[in-house]
């Protein structure tokens, strides 16, 4: 067992892509090794299915959008290649290019409306495409051959030479391999992390500056590329196309392969595709039972094995390798203390927000300035969180204006507000499952330096540079909040207190203009609160604008430069901690202390006050 673990660790230390790449290259040489025609054909069909499944994974597994239209894009690519070939353009590279573009066009046309409403809309609009296919093929009977099929294709060529037999197998294998390199490079980049964040929590995605609609559309449209490529490859395989190849049954096969292999994985597509292609096609009654089988696959895997075989394999591997330790000395070496943060002033002017007849905020004014901690207090339901949500752009105020620096942000979408420099933590820590602490922190850097998808796919120097910066910044932030030793753990497995600190780290890596902390101290133990208090003070001293929503009155009195007290949606009092602590309305509304019968209860507060001023731990 120990030697196995040692071996596993050595393999784990290798770059993760070595094994799949070696396998992929090996597949290219299969025809030489295996003469058997039927196996070779099954493999070609498997590779084509791999491409289709991989495209679906990008949309279903990573963006969280069920799309059933892969078959339509597949058909689009196939008929595009078929027609090109019919008219004499037999060059396979050209066909692949056109097929990919056609598929992307189909993707965008269905994606833009389909992604506007909710997660079923895209499923349905893309499902509709499958139903439309026979009609469209029949409308263009002249060109497509209608139900009888397209029989006028010519043998595909590469650099003017006709490609057939083993050589064509190599073409299919190479195209598939190249796509998987692209796919893997997208997923293992900040875009891949952004997709995972988006799937688990659109709210969090927006608060780190990701546009939900654009990112989902990007994933869905990109996912149609391999479908188009697969279409062109399929068309040149038999030089014959008929509507039957693009049936509803095939659409369900693609989905089942994705679910079995694991939608949220790069290589799960290969496993799923091979299982469905080889496993099912061998059973003689396949066509009769195919719907029952794929239906059961979806049901069983969906209920019992939500992450597919990939998640099973991943969990097993992690158990084998064991826990990865953090090299704390290396982390310490990176730490440089807190750099300067260019805080921006926040001005909330006369903001009003109603929900139906309930006036949650009434003409609220508030100003938070760089280098200062401004605290927002008030009883439950007084409008604190509503105000944060208005500032972040999740709610649009009915009246009033909000400025960050000189920029007016109250009309902006949440992801634009985030890009303007607003970061926040959440009352209930918002941490997507399936990523490590380190990755969760890096997600916070999405809006800082932009790296395009192309740069990520081609692994251009800029990609590497930004990635290094991301990592260094994340390590520094983790060290600052004091949870660096947890960096390789799954982020959701942390206890509540550390999850809150993780959220603070995620905000810090963005060097925010404005830091909103929503009840960040609740659920923390005394040591953690003390550490947090020190941290917030240092962050403010470094120049950040901090707006703190907090129930821990002691912490507020210790930290805040100015306190704003809300009650019933309007500002009840504002001032220094001393002023607030002695404000009779605050005492009665917020602390439930009746000033008239003071001595007993009011002294609780004055004791709090004197504690914080003479303060043991300051």
């Amino acid at each position, binding site marked *: 067992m120990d030697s196995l673990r040692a071996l596993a660790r050595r393999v784990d230390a290798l770059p993760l892509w070595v094994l799949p790449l070696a396998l992929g290259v090996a597949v290219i040489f299969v025809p030489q090794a295996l003469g058997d025609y039927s196996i070779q054909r099954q493999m070609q069909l498997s590779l084509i299915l791999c491409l289709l499944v991989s495209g679906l994974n990008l949309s*279903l597994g990573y963006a*969280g959008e*069920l799309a*059933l239209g892969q078959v339509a894009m597949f058909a689009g690519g196939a008929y595009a290649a078929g027609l090109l070939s019919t008219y004499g353009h037999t060059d396979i590279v050209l066909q692949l290019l056109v097929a990919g573009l056609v598929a992307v066009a189909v993707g965008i*046309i*269905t994606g*833009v*409306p*389909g992604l*506007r*409403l*909710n*997660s*079923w*809309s895209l*499923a*349905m*609009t893309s*499902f*509709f*495409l499958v*139903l*439309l296919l026979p*009609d*469209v093929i*029949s*409308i263009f009977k002249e060109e497509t051959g209608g139900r009888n099929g397209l029989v006028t294709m010519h043998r595909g060529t590469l650099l003017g030479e006709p490609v057939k037999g083993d050589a064509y197998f190599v073409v299919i294998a190479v195209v598939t391999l190249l796509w998987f390199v692209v796919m893997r490079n997208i997923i293992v980049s900040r875009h891949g992390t952004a997709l995972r964040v988006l*799937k688990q929590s659109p*709210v969090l995605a927006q608060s780190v500056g990701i546009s939900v609609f654009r990112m989902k559309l990007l994933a869905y449209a990109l996912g149609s590329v391999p479908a188009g490529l697969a279409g062109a490859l399929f068309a040149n395989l038999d030089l014959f196309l008929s509507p039957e190849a693009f049936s*509803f049954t095939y659409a*369900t096969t693609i*989905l089942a392969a994705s*679910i079995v292999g694991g939608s949220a994985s790069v290589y799960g597509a290969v496993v799923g595709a091979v299982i469905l292609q080889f496993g099912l096609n061998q059973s003689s009654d396949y066509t*009769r*039972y*195919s*719907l*029952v*089988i*794929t*239906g*059961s*696959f*979806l*049901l*069983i895997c*969906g*209920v019992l094995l*939500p992450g597919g075989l990939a998640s099973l394999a991943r969990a097993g591997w992690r158990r084998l390798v064991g826990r990865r330790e953090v090299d704390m000395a290396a982390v310490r070496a990176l730490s440089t203390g807190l750099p300067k943060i260019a805080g921006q002033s926040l001005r909330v002017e006369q903001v009003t927000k109603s*929900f139906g007849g309930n006036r949650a905020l009434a003409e609220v004014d508030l100003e938070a300035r760089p280098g200062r901690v401004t605290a927002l207090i008030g009883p439950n339901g007084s409008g604190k*969180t509503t105000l944060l*949500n208005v500032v*972040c752009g*999740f*709610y*649009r105020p009915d009246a009033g204006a909000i400025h960050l620096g000189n920029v007016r942000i109250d009309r902006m979408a949440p992801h634009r507000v985030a890009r303007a420099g607003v970061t926040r933590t*959440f009352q209930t820590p918002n941490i997507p499952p399936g990523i490590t602490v380190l990755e969760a922190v890096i997600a916070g850097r999405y809006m800082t330096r932009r790296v395009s998808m192309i740069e990520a796919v081609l692994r251009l120097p800029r990609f590497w540079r930004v990635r290094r910066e991301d990592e260094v910044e994340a390590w520094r932030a983790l060290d600052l909040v004091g949870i660096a030793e947890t960096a390789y753990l799954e982020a959701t497995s942390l206890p509540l207190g550390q999850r809150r600190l993780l959220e603070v780290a995620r905000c810090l890596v963005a060097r925010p203009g404005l830091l909103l902390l929503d009840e960040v101290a609740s659920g923390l133990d005394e040591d953690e609160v003390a550490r947090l208090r020190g941290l917030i003070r240092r962050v403010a001293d470094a120049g950040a604008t901090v707006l703190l929503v907090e129930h821990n009155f002691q912490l507020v009195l210790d930290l805040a430069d100015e306190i704003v007290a809300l009650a019933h949606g309007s500002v009840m009092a504002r001032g220094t901690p001393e002023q607030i602590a002695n404000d009779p309305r605050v005492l009665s509304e917020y602390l439930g202390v009746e000033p008239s019968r003071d001595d007993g209860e009011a002294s609780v507060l004055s004791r709090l006050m004197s504690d914080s001023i003479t303060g043991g731990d300051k």
Partner: protein
Amino acid sequence: MTLVLGALAVGAIYAIVAIGYNIVFISSKTFNFAQAQLMMVGAFVAYSGLVSWNLPWVVVLLIAGAIVAVVAGLEERIAVRPVRDPHNILVTTLGVSILLDGAAQLIWGTQPLTVPFVAGDRAINVLGGRAYPVELALIGLACLLVALIVLFTRRTKYGMALLAIAEDREAAQLRGINVRALAFAAFVASGLLAGFVGLFVGPATFAVSTLGASLALKGFVALAIGGFGSFPGALVGGIVVGLVEVGAARYLGGDFVHLMIFALLLLVLMLRPAGLFARAKERMV
């Protein structure tokens, strides 16, 4: 007029599918992909009952309702309740729908089966047009269903509990509403409805194993037009889809029917993503 009546009847079917979606959606915020397949099973059972076993129609009505209600109840227990992630429910209910498609193919074959209608199949003159009794029955049934459901949700305790769940699940739970039991009941009710309706849908469309997919999509378009959660909206949406379908078939040709309905769906999603009868809600954090 004959065309319009035909369109209304087709639209009524889609409206009924959309009503089924809505019943489940309101009670558990779940989209039941297999709703139309349940109706298809109802149509097949109606065929078996009326043609193969030659039973009286009241008995067939009860059998179809019971069988489909059981299927829907099983679906909720197996494919919905144990699944945590809402993304996954879409996959599992789709799995159920494909499973039902496949099972229907195995049991009843792939050929369309003619289901006779209780009140005969002699066309009668109505309002200056001609219509089959089943068409009139479908139109009446859809209107009646919407009226009953609206009354149910406004006047009865359980109806109001459903609306409360739709508004805020946790708050409803805190008020002592058994959310899980009601979600289950809603599935069973939608199954019961689908089973009963099979006796009306079957005669209008044939019982065929591809019926589910096509009804599912058009019912969804009806739902998108009317707005999620709105029953009168589902009726209006269904009728619009019916009119477009019959109009496209008459003036453009059969190949254009689905294309036009698809265009309608895209148009609605672009212009009024929340539908005609539902309010857009602000995002919550």
